[in-house]
C-alpha cells in the first residue's frame, strides 16, 4: 500500500507499505508527471521482493517538498470584475461566469469530476442560494418534494435532500478547482484552498451555510453543513 499518514501505517503494519511525502489527495504525488508516478509505483512494487514482512519503507524526495513550498507565493489567479449586482448572489454568479471559460477548457482536456449531484452549475447555484436564503427550511422542504428543478437527472432524483446538498457543494468546489487547475502553472493545494475559502464568494457562501442550516429539521442536511463542507481547520 501507499501511506500518506505514517502513524496510521505504523499502527496497521500492512504486509508492504511505502510512505509517501505528498499532500492528502495526491498519493501518487505529481499530476501529469507520468515518470514521477511510475517512480512511486515502482518503489512500492519493489517491496514485494522482500521475503518477509511487514515492510515499511519511505519514498524520500526533498525536491518535491521544495517544489510545493516554491508555489506558496502564488497569487490570486482571477481578478473578479465589479458587477452591477453587488449582492452576494450577484457576485457569486459573476465569479462563475468569469471562471466558465477555464472550466470549459478543463472539460476539453480532462474528464470533469463535476456533476455528481446530477445538477447543472446553474441549478447548483439556485439550490445553494436557496438554502442560504432567509427561509432555508421552506426551501429544503421544497427540495424534499418535487423540488425547484423540473429537469434533473435520475441520479439527482434518487438522492436524499442531504446528499443532494452535499454533492451540490462538492460540484461547486470542483467547478472552481477544475477552472483554476486548467490555467497555466496551477497553484499548490494549500494556495488553492486559501484562495477558495478566503477570497471567493463561493467559499463565503459555503461557510455561511453551516450557520444557516444549523437548526434545519433535516438531520443529514444539518450534519453535512456542520461537518463535511468546510475544511476542519476553518471550523
Amino acid at each position, binding site marked *: 500500500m501507499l501511506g500518506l*499518514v505514517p502513524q496510521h501505517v505504523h499502527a496497521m503494519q*500492512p*504486509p508492504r507499505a511505502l510512505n509517501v511525502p505528498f499532500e492528502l489527495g495526491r498519493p501518487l504525488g505529481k499530476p501529469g508527471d507520468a515518470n514521477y508516478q511510475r517512480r512511486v509505483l*515502482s518503489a512500492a*512494487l519493489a517491496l514485494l521482493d522482500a521475503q518477509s514482512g511487514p515492510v515499511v519503507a519511505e519514498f524520500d524526495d526533498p525536491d518535491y517538498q521544495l517544489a510545493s513550498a516554491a508555489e506558496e507565493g502564488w497569487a490570486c489567479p482571477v481578478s473578479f470584475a465589479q458587477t452591477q449586482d453587488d449582492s452576494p448572489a450577484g457576485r457569486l454568479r459573476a465569479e462563475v461566469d468569469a471562471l466558465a471559460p477555464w472550466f470549459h477548457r478543463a472539460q476539453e482536456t480532462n*474528464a470533469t469530476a463535476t456533476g455528481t449531484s446530477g445538477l447543472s452549475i446553474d441549478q447548483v447555484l439556485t439550490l445553494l442560494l436557496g438554502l442560504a436564503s432567509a427561509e432555508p427550511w421552506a426551501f429544503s422542504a421544497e427540495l424534499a418534494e418535487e423540488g425547484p428543478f423540473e429537469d434533473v437527472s435520475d*441520479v439527482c432524483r434518487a438522492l436524499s435532500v442531504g446528499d443532494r446538498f452535499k454533492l451540490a457543494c462538492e460540484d461547486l*468546489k470542483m467547478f472552481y478547482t477544475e477552472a483554476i487547475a486548467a490555467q497555466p502553472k496551477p497553484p499548490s493545494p494549500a494556495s488553492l484552498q486559501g484562495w477558495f475559502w478566503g477570497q471567493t464568494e463561493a467559499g463565503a457562501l459555503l461557510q455561511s451555510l453551516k450557520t444557516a442550516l444549523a437548526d434545519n429539521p433535516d438531520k443529514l442536511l444539518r450534519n453535512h453543513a456542520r461537518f*463535511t463542507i468546510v475544511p*476542519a481547520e476553518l471550523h
Partner: protein
Amino acid sequence: MRAEEVAKGLAAMECPPPQTHPWVEPAQGAKVAVVSTAGLCHRGDPPFSFGGADYRVIDRQDARDVVMSHISTNFDRSGFTQDLNVVLPLERLDELAGQGAIGSVSRWHYSFMGATDPAQMAPAVGALVDVMMRDEVDVVLLVPV
C-alpha cells in the same frame, strides 16, 4: 474537530496483529488490482454518503468518467481534477505491465470511501476478496487519499 485530532483518533484505533510472514507474489508475474479509499465511482453510479461501507467497481476500460464523492473536505482534489492517475494510477500500471515490471493489470478496480469506520467495511471487504480471488488477482495495491 481539527484534522490533527481526526488523524490521532484513527491512529489509536485497534488493528489486527500483523502477519510476520505474509504471502507475497513477485511483482514481475503478478496481476495487479487497485483498491482506493477515495470514494470514486463511475458517473451515474450511486455516490457515497455518510457511513457508506460498501464499494464501487471501476472498469479499467471505461475509466474516463470516474468521479469522486468522498464526504471529507479535508484533502486536495485539484490533483485528481488534473490527472486521475494521481489517485487511481491505472495508466501507470498499464505502462509497467508493458515494460514487464508487473505481469498484468486487472480490468476491475475498486473504491471504498475512507471516512467510514473500518469495522463497518469488513463485510464488504471480505466479499471483495472473494471477487478478486476469482479474478485471479495476485497483488492488491491499496491507495489511500
